[in-house]
């Protein structure tokens, strides 16, 4: 099985340095893009590969790039931003790529920046990733030294600077427009869309924001082609995916697998199944902002459309498993508290709705809930739903809640009727 993204990452070892990765052909795609292809050519190749964004929303990367104006007045400077914020609970996939092979990301970013003709790129890095920061900075300075960054890269006349910006916290900064505000040194409030960053982004200029995993692909795709990429997945969507599992499983961890492996295979084979004495009750398949799937969904293939059809989202592909010895109400209370605290405070349903949700969940968990809360909770899942709020933060919070209320209805009822948490 091919593992293009993680093939050069060896557990417990330092990431490959420039020379090593270069010799292994890691920069081949980048060189090809810059020396042999037009920017538009790179974009259409990526479009043809059907690379879908790995940041959670699954938007086609080539399409996103093609929205960037390539001619006309006042289009420069343009920016490329790598979203390495990764702050969603249960999500730890970009960390591996950042710590394990920063050159792969840099190679991809150079090709991506070339495609949209951006002269400056920022890596917006989660504050806690100290090791990743060190490795990135080291790799970037190597790339400068080797003439892959800076002025006139490889003698092609293309210039690119990459800066690392470490975040100061706040999950919302992972939302791409909030991220832009944070990069501008402002409060990390999301921006109105449209206009999309491709037309008015960082400092008001055309900007593309892509996830670490997405960008790590680019050089590979340029080197090996769209068909190769498509062939990697089991469902034709394109590519492999980093899948992670956390919770009470035997071997929590992260694996690069073809897009389209089933949930059951990931949990039971790669993660080794449930820990002894624990039974599977459900899973958030794509991080804390995705709907619960349960036993009956274990055969669902983990790719964008199939998970969506099953009523959840592929999200970041990092699963959180709920076991039978963890109270689902406490589980949701924890998740919703996170969302309530991380709300940016801009729009009403999110800012006011989430704390109310969290308070009701706490009350139920503490045995002080009322039946009426179940209706109010349910109402909030649509009240905070997509289109109702300014950004996707609150709708993300609504997902586990709405499915949790459905799948664990009896547990909720028992809490209220017995006036205590049955797990306590």
């Amino acid at each position: 099985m091919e593992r293009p993204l993680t093939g050069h990452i060896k557990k417990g070892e330092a990431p490959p340095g420039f020379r090593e990765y270069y010799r292994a052909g890691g920069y081949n795609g980048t060189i090809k893009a810059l020396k042999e292809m037009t920017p538009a050519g790179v974009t259409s190749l990526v479009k043809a590969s059907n690379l879908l964004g790995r940041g959670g929303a699954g938007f086609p990367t080539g399409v996103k790039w093609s929205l960037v104006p390539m001619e006309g007045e006042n289009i420069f400077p343009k920016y490329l931003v790598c979203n390495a914020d990764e702050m969603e609970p249960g999500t730890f996939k970009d960390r591996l790529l950042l710590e394990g092979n920063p050159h792969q990301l840099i190679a991809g970013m150079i090709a991506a920046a070339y495609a949209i003709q951006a002269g400056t790129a920022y890596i917006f890095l989660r504050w806690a990733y100290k090791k990743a920061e060190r490795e990135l900075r080291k790799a970037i300075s190597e790339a400068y030294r080797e003439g892959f960054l800076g002025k006139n890269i490889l003698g092609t006349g293309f210039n690119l600077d990459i800066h690392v910006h470490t975040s100061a916290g706040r999950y919302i900064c992972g939302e791409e427009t909030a991220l832009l505000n944070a990069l501008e040194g402002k409060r990390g409030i999301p921006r109105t869309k449209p206009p999309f960053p491709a037309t008015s982004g960082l400092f008001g200029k055309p900007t593309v924001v892509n996830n670490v995993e997405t960008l790590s692909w680019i050089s590979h795709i340029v080197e090996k082609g769209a068909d190769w990429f498509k062939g990697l997945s089991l469902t034709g969507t394109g590519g492999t995916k980093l899948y992670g599992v956390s919770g009470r499983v035997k071997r929590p961890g992260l694996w690069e697998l073809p897009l389209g492996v089933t949930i059951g295979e990931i949990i039971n084979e790669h993660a080794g199944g449930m820990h002894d004495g624990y039974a599977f009750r459900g899973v958030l398949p794509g991080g804390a902002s995705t709907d619960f799937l349960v036993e009956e969904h274990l055969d669902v293939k983990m790719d964008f459309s199939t998970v969506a059809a099953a009523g959840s989202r592929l999200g970041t592909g990092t699963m959180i498993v709920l076991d039978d010895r963890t109270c689902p109400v406490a589980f949701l209370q924890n998740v919703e508290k996170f969302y309530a605290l991380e709300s940016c405070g801009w729009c009403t349903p999110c800012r006011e709705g989430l704390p109310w949700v969290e308070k009701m969940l706490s009350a139920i968990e503490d045995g002080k809930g009322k039946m009426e809360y179940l209706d109010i909770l349910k109402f909030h899942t649509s009240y905070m739903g997509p289109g109702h709020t300014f950004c996707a933060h609150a709708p993300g919070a609504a997902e586990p809640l709405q499915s949790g209320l459905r799948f664990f209805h009896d547990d909720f009822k028992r809490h209220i009727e017995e006036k205590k948490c049955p797990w306590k």
Partner: protein
Amino acid sequence: MEMKVVNIRIDGKPYEAHEGKSLLDTALSLGLYIPHFCYHPALGSVGACRLCAVKKFRDTNDTRGRIVMSCMEPVVDGLIVSINDPDAKAFRAAVIESLMTNHPHDCPVCDEGGECHLQDMTVMSGHNYRRFDFRKRTHNDQYLGPFISHEMNRCIQCYRCVRFYRDYAGGRDFNVFATHNNVFFGRHEDGTLQNEFSGNLVEVCPTGVFTDKTFREHYTRKWDLSNAPSVCVHCSVGCNIIAGERYDTLRRIMNRYNGAVNGYFICDRGRFGYEFVNGKDRILSPRTRDSRDLEQAEMPADQVFTALEPLFSKDRKIMGIGSPRASLESNYALLRLVGEENFFHGISGKEQSLTRAALQFMQNSGIVVPSLKQVEKADAVIILGEDLTNTAPMMALAVRQAARNIQITEALAKGIPFWNDLPVRELAQDRKSPVYIATPVKDSLDDVAERSFRGTPAGISKLGFNISSVIKRQAIVPGDNDDEIRNLAEQIARTLLKAENPLVIAGITCLDGNVLNAGMSIASSLLSLNKKVMFIPVLPESNSMGLALMPGKSLDDAADTLSVQGTDTLIILENDLFRRADEDTVANMFGKSGRVVVLDYLNNPTARAADILLPATAFAESQGTIVNNEGRAQRYYKVLAAGEGIKESWQWLNQVSGIRSDNVPVSPGHFDDIVASMVTALPVFSAIKEYIPDADFRMLNAKVPRQTFRYSGRTAMNAHRAVSEKRVRQDPDSPLAFSMEGRRESPPSSLVPFYWTPGWNSVQAFYNYIDHPNGSMKGGDPGIRLIRQAERVNSGSFEMITGYFESEGDGWLIVPLYRVFGSEELSSAASSLRQLVDDPAILVNRRDAERLNVDDGDSVRLETSGKRLVVKVKIENSLVSGVAGLTVNLPGMNFVDLPASGEILKI
């Protein structure tokens, strides 16, 4: 901006709408109410509160539709939406329910109660049952200075305050802090809000977070106030205001919408300066003294005319001094009493000639004289010699908006509509339309200026004339122009030539003829190239322009005439001469006058020096017309009963004219009779009579009530004096009634005493009085332009008078600096505002201070134009070397004739 008319459907009904506007804006224009908070017509849409939700349908087959925010939805042809859709309604109710989870239940004791946007929206959205049973979040409140009270727990996080204060008004000492439901709006620490427009927070905030502290001190519910349409008297811009009364005191000033002038906002001087009306400095009864070495003593009312009779009998020589802060009618009544040849304007010769020069230019040159609204639309602005924030604050605010025009144009080119506030700002970042400011000292508008030039008045005018020459492709004005001036002039000229809507603002208040001439010269050069160009001067006072339109000579002329011929009786109308001429001159004038009669309402030095002092009414107790700097005549109406024996100046003067047998009073002596007489005598004012409703105006046989129909206590409020209900006060002079009865539906725009329509108790009721948000008042914006654009272009030519006010030798050039709080006479008597008035100071730059061997706060002796005064030094590095700025017209300060050269001596 031309907008295409398209067809849309709202709740099944067809409507015409303007393409590209927001749906919310459109609905409000159509009289369809969509609840909202974060949208404000002047601030645009940001989609934060989510209250304006409606259902949008893809096409007629779409029955499910989806919820969208109407404030963020652009109108397109064929748009189908529903406001009444059950899902949309439920969603809006839920938003209110959300906001109510933390909002305190303190309506009965909340200052905002009864005029609260949140109350309106709660009722409109239909949320009424509380399901939230947890604790509310609470915040600490802050001390924000003498004007604004802060009660953060009432906040519903609509972000309007911070968007007004920072984005709209340019204030930087206010912000939103923290995140999630803990966001806090205020300052980083307690302290007085620094922005001159902070008072608008009171109206912009939809709840009671920011309330009027001065109103709080003598609080009354909105529905218990009597209100009248009024006009601000604190500068030459003439913002429209609503004055509110209870128990015979003036309680507060609120904005009154005028689409052409102040829109939704007024400055803090205008909002909080009103306290002088209730102040302890009022003249409450006639006073007199038999000889000048005696103190004035109160005079019984019935003796006033006996005392006046001999002073005004036909054989007496009389002279009258008018005032730029008195109404046209009062000035006219004086003019009529004393005769044109004996009427003097009560302003210095310099001020008069500058004002008249500007006026002539405005009347004859063919220039466009912009309203404030048009100022906002300028795409290039040059300001010469005027510190707008301190002399005409709302014009500064308008220029601040003009600086944003490039952002709006750039956004539009990318398909982002102007109302979509955040993207417009994000796209343009800090790019600004060109504004150039040339003033002696740093300016609060500098942050929006492309370049600010600092120099002497001579330097400023040199710059101006250079710009003008470049525009006309003439050689640079000969003389010692340095490269800086030349290059800057080139740059500004190029910008102005490129602009489609250039604007020249020239100061009169800097009192330097060359500066004004330079401004007019730039404008006329552009005109001569057939460019569309706007020109507007800033004048010193509320009716400076009205006075300039009248015949009459200056105060200097009066002094000269008096010193040659003397007079038997000198009558002074609402004017403190000690602010306008030096003490000796005024003393001489008094010396040459047999008896001096003064009409005024504030006990100033001139009033104290009178032989007979007649108590006049302040604006809130009077009716009158004043003309603002664009030549717009606007009328204010009384809201307050003046005390016993206090009369409006025009009433006093008209009655006095009966004493002279050759000059019978205008009869029967109502306000309209004076106006009629005035327009006959002075045809420049004839438009006034045509346009402003007279006292006979009725709507369905009824007057317009000053009180809301909920007005309470009428039968009881005087019970401590007499148990039977007093007859309501009559007002024969206006179409407004001092009562709650009458027709309140859509009075003429200039007669709107307050905003109220069913469902809207908050100021937000203004939607029902305007044709569309940011448009005009229904029936046209109040006021009549007396200056029409001349058809024939006759711009004249302007020359620089050289050698004028250059500093001589080693001496200093002293220039006048105005202070928004302090330099205006009336507002300085307001107790809250007075707290923000600094002591007089002389400003010099650090190097000059070192040369003088003084530091910040040291006292120095200033000698200039024959005056010596002791003032404190303030370091201000923006001043050029050799120039010192004296803060002028502050309370208690003597007149100093500036600009002038002078000496500064360390003591």
